[in-house]
């Protein structure tokens, strides 16, 4: 076993810890692992290029940018904020917990492309969350605004990750099934997806509790100090 390629992992950790530019860190780490494994430079460039071209899918968010940009230019974020501010029963925790529940339920039905950081969080959920947070803490400062937006993004992640595995045709479930089949164990996708349900419930409860605690913290910070 050649343990030297692990140096690439060390390069990633050191680079991120030193807060160097992630693009540079990642490319450098690739070369560290490549040289440690004894690959010639020409092979490494080909490997890097091929892997890069083969994984173009994450960059498809650029297709949503013309729509999001046009709508932002036309005041979408301002309108979302004004609308939420006018709903008297809407609070930060109600908004985010409902969004998480919706994301989990739709994910469990296989509808994961509803929502996402570029499609829904930036143009809709984050400005709405800020407007809702202002109802609890009218003098929301810059740091608190950042934390509200970060929480909105985190809620999207949690809702997505721990809902989709209940759907039997999702990549993760099929990957598990394929792995076991290759090792001589035959399982139905349904029997795997079933065991994702306890975690989905636990994720919902834990994150919902954290959202409520966050809002309580906002409320405390808004009260005049005695």
């Amino acid at each position, binding site marked *: 076993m050649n343990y030297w*390629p*692990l140096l*690439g992992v060390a390069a*990633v950790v050191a680079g991120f810890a030193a807060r160097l*530019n*992630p*693009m*540079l860190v*990642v*490319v450098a*780490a*690739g070369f560290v692992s490549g040289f*440690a494994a004894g*690959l010639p430079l020409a092979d490494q*460039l*080909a490997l*890097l*290029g*091929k*892997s*890069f*071209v083969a*994984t*173009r899918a*994450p960059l*498809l*968010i*650029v*297709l949503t*940018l*013309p*729509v999001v*940009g046009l*709508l932002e*230019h*036309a005041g*979408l974020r*301002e*309108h*979302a904020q004004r609308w939420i501010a006018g709903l008297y029963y809407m609070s930060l925790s109600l908004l985010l917990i409902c969004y998480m529940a919706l994301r989990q339920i739709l994910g469990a039905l296989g509808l994961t*492309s*509803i929502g996402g950081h570029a*499609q829904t*969080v*930036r143009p809709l959920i984050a400005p709405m969350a800020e407007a809702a947070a202002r109802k609890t803490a009218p003098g929301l400062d810059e740091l608190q605004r*950042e934390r509200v*937006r*970060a929480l909105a*993004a*985190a809620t999207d992640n949690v809702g997505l990750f721990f809902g989709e*595995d209940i759907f039997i045709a999702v990549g993760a479930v099929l*990957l*598990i099934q394929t*792995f076991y089949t290759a*090792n001589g*164990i035959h399982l139905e996708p349904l029997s795997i997806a079933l*065991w994702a349900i306890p*975690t989905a419930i*636990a994720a919902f409860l834990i994150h919902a509790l*954290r959202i409520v605690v966050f809002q309580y913290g906002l409320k405390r910070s808004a009260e005049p100090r005695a």
Partner: protein
Amino acid sequence: MIALSYVWWLAALVLGAAAVIDLRARRWANALFWALIAIVFAAGDAILAADKAGNRLPTQLAGAAVVLMALLAGSGLLKRAPAGDGDVAARTASAQRLGHQLFVPALMIPLVTTVLFLAAPYLVAGDWRLFPAGNATVPALALGCCIAVAFALSITRSRPAQALRESSRLLDQLGWAVVLPMLLAALGGVFEATGVGNAVAALIGQLIATDSRLACTIAYGVGMIVFTVIMGNGFAAFPVMTGGIGLPLLIRQHGADPAVVGALGMLTGYCGTLLTPMAANFNIVPAVLLELRDPYGVIRSQALTALLLAATNITLMYFLAFR
């Protein structure tokens, strides 16, 4: 038929427009950066085809382009556009005028995509089908975006060029962060090809007491998290950790239920995804999209959820797998 290659060309068009707009504004580094990605996107299928045919020059050039992009990003020459587009008064007035109509195109992207995806098996006429069989998601997303942009143009009474100017503005705001997920996936490929995965699994296998069910369960769960944090992706960690610990120790030696081990192992890996900057499209890109000053702001916000849930998962695995 809307083939996958048309979708890549459409994305290359959006990226290429950003390059032209940056070129006109004399932001040379930004123009070069977007032009490089636009070319890689547009030529992607040809590059992969040439590689399959044994001609490695195009893939090597793509690799060199990636290195150049990383150098551009690391040099600080890329200018990040200022957040927002200035004119708050005009936006507020437009928001008042258009009201809830503004929500419609935003919601159209997911809804139209989903409807098209679900309807894909019926959108056929003889041998002709609207979307390629078994691969409808990406073309459906592309068509959904096109329909939504047409609708957005009509309600805001803008010209198509305005849409490309807006996407260019957003791309310059996002900067290199938008390319990072692709690059990390490429690093995952390099790590796999150089044997990093096997080395990690071998190390963890040496460290634990294999005759204890609890030690094996914890080692498997923690291994899934650590490996996911390193690779940025639970999918990459699952075969390595399950092949190294889950299958030989938990399932074969201790008789754990494979369905439970598989489902909860993968979900424990997802907790690692919430913790790592390597999962850039979930953790770093949104920090840039939401204009957070702390690039790790999203990770900080979800870290406690991830840790509590990971502990819950490992506990669940221990009690459910050995019923």
